[in-house]
């Protein structure tokens, strides 16, 4: 493994045009200090017990069997080192919002690149679906550097536009992914919550593990505008609202909190991990926080 490079904040990372370099920096920097085997046994089906032989990973030892029988057995999993992950990237208009240098889509793209790099480096397969109200790109899950380059190329071409239709995209994905795996959804989730949750439930019912990375901008969270503002919708040219933000702030935040709460509860109900990330958080922190929680759960 290469010497970990210092990680930069999102604005600085923005200047790094090549996704591959960026992803490498993020991942290697993130994984510095984390055990490489954090993804080991990651969402894989148990197959059988077999006797322990010298050289087996002690983490696969079944300690309960040892306790009961005083014999050493390891657990075998189906496709133990071959995780099939699909990255679902929301490229709708709302993802194009930026209050600073980095838009939500920019952030999601870099995060997606980092996740793809991590997966491929782990010898897992990674795929990509880019959508707005329709699928814009579909790369089935594969391993290898060629796949990684294809993913990076697609990500670099991705721009925000169109309306959000996350539920539809997810429903479409379910029919395309035959084998269960990991679905990483990068979105702001600014859609019909119930429809979204239903779609996520469908993924879960297809035995996929689902993680939703909810990408948000700080201003969407705080709504700290100081003067009269005309808010123009990023997804519809007709929708414009002129308001004194000070007067609607409280109600907006209440609405936002309610939205987040229902999303959170729904995901919890369907055993979907949801990771809200604000775009002013460093990539490594976002990724490391998530990976650490995954490692703890494992």
């Amino acid at each position, binding site marked *: 493994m290469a010497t970990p490079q210092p990680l930069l904040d999102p604005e600085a990372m923005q200047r790094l045009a090549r996704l591959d370099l960026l992803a490498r920096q993020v991942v290697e920097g993130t994984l510095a200090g984390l055990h490489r085997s954090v993804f080991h046994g990651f969402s894989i089906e148990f197959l059988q017990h077999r006797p322990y032989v010298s050289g087996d990973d002690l983490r696969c030892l079944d300690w309960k069997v040892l306790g009961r029988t005083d014999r050493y057995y390891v657990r075998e999993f189906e496709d133990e080192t071959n995780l099939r992950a699909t990255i679902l990237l929301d490229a709708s*208009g*709302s*993802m*194009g*919002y930026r209050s600073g240098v980095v838009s*939500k889509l920019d952030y999601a793209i870099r995060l997606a690149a980092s996740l793809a790099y991590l997966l491929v480096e782990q010898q897992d397969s990674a795929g990509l679906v880019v959508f707005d109200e329709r699928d814009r790109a579909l790369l089935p899950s594969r391993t290898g550097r060629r796949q990684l380059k294809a993913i990076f190329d697609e990500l670099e071409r991705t721009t925000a536009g169109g309306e959000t239709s996350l539920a539809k995209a997810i429903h479409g994905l379910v029919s395309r992914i035959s084998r269960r795996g990991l679905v990483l959804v990068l979105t*702001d989730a*600014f859609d019909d919550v119930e429809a979204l949750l239903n779609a996520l439930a469908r993924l879960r019912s297809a035995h996929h593990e689902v993680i939703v990375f*909810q990408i*948000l*901008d700080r201003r*969407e*969270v*705080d*709504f*700290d*505008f100081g*003067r*009269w*503002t*005309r*808010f*123009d*919708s*990023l*997804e*519809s040219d007709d*929708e414009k*609202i*002129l*308001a*004194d933000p*000070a*007067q*609607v*702030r*409280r*109600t*907006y*935040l*209440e*609405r*936002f*909190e309610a*939205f*987040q709460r229902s999303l959170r509860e729904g995901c919890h109900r369907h055993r979907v991990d949801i990771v*809200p990330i*604000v775009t002013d958080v460093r990539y490594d922190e976002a990724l490391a926080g998530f990976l650490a929680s995954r490692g703890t759960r494992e």
Partner: protein
Amino acid sequence: MTFLNEILLLGMAAMAVPLILHLIRRRRYQVVPWGAMHLLAAAVTKRTRSIRLEQLLLVAVRMAILGLLAAAMARPALDSLGDAAGALRGKRAVGVVVDVSYSLEFGGAKARVRAAVEAIAASLGEGDTIAIVAAGTSSRVVLHLTSHEAADEGGELEAALDGIESAGTARLAAGIGEAWSLLASAEVANREVFVISDSQAINWLPDRRDQMREILSAVRRDPNGARVAWVTDGGVSDAAAAIDLGQPFLGGVRLSEGFYAAREAIEVRVAVVPRRPIDGGRVTLLVDGIEFGTAEIGTLDGAEREVIFRPQFESTGSHWVEARLDGVVGRSDTRSFAALVTRGRMPVLIVDGAPRSGRLKSAVGFVQLALDPYSGRRSVFDVGLARADALTPSALVGVSVVVLANVRSFKQEIVAELEKFVKAGGGLVVFCGDRVDPDRYNAAFRRDGAGLLPAELLVESPSVPADETGVGIEIAAADRFAELGSDAFQGVRVTRWIPARLLDSGNGTRVLLELSNGDPLLIERRLEHGRVVFCTTSATNDWSNLPLRPIFLPFVQDLVLSLGAGVSSSRTLAPGEAIELPLSKALVDSHVTLRLPDGRENRGMSFLRGTRALFEYRNTSAPGLYVVTVDGKDPEHFAVTTTREESDLTALETSEVRRFLGEFGVELVVGVDGVEDFLRQQRYGVEVWKPLVAIVLLLAFFELFLVRWIERGRGSTP
């Protein structure tokens, strides 16, 4: 409502600023491409109505702040209701009563009083009039009612203010009455009296409160009465700081009453009144400027102490004494003065109506013995004798007192001389006896009330039956015989007297002693400069046992001394009391020099009053020694002493003064600033800028709160 700074009302145009800013802000908005429209739209839809209300309220509050601020700066005034409103519609006559008690000299009180009077004068308008009364021991009009323009331009106001000096104790009720009577002559709708006084507690003693109650009630009841305002300058406490109230002061110098004879010891009593226990100090007495003696005070625990000196004046004439309290600093009432006139022996002529040989055989004998009881020792009295039938007018020359003892009658010429003698200041004592004929006396001496007799003698001469022991004597004029004591005549029995009926009681005639049955015994009558004392019994022991009683000697001496001392031998006056120096007629229109206590000299002239010349000076407000010199002759001394109570600068609580005055609708104003505010309120009404500013501050806080309330809930984390 009126505005004192009308031009600043233009500032109310600033009210438009918040509205304009609001409109500008609405137009000058930023454009933000937004993703979470569904959340924003829901928020805006929910609060559309309340958003509008909040915007309106905020703009309205901001406009109100600016508008009210501009209004406050324009100094609005609400017209007062009632009398003040009417006061603005007509000319005013203003009387200013100034408390010129001694405390005026302390703590800058005079300057404050002047400032208050000037403020009042400055508030007057065209055609208004002003008068100023100085209320001291007596009231003095320092400025008669005059138009304030004339008073101002002619310098009369300035001169009146310059002439205000302290004059003893303030008699404010009298001062108010004086001012009120001055205003009564003004043909105006609005009369106002301003009383300027410190809150010295001694001005509020019960008797003075009663006087004030009476005058303030009278003013209030009078339909043409005046509106009264009381200005307290609050300066007594400052004066108290200038004077250490803890120090003792001299309570005054008292001389023994009566006739002061040269080469006779005179008792001078000096009272020392401490305000707190003191240890040490001494009293020094100076006689005619020369130190006579010193007495150590020792320790005083708060009680008054009297120190007695007995100086002797070698020469006759005017003299003065000064008592000093040493060991204390800075108080002018630690010096006290007294002045007096000493004379040689008093010439007394006893006219014998029934000469008998032997000293205790006749009335003359008893009287002579009483006046000159000690053989071989000089008496104060130079007693001469004359037979009634040989009396001539020349015998009266140079005599101070004539005693008629059992005289039957006189020639008309002698009666006329006796009348002149008494009117010129002489004293006449008449004792009855068996030779006195009531009819003759009534005819010769009474002259239907114009003569010397103070009473009509009744013919009947009752005598007490043999089995009774006589009637007693009671003192009718207690002040007259205070020195002798109230029981002085106990044991005296009168068996014979001539009944008398007073001719004109109260008009200088009064009963000094009466018998226990009510008949007058000793009757006094003032006749111009002299007095007559008529005794209805005799000076012998056959009509009463009085001549044989120990009281007889002091009684006769006291009687003769008081008659022979003239109008006054004492020249010690209270502040404000006029100096009156009688002179012989030959000294009319003479040049008179008066040296005042502060060393300044005044020049004046004597003038004719009645049958004699007189020099008079009224402005005796300053305590100390006044020296009068007529045509370069020997100086005559007068002493003015402060009243003891004026040294007490304890102030009455303002709340108590306000409460008392409130009963009569009198407003209390505190300080010169208070006077200006009061006058302004009178003229323009009550200023309300302060409440407006308070409202502005409240609105400002409310605006802050409103903004915070609208913007609440800033920030949250996902």
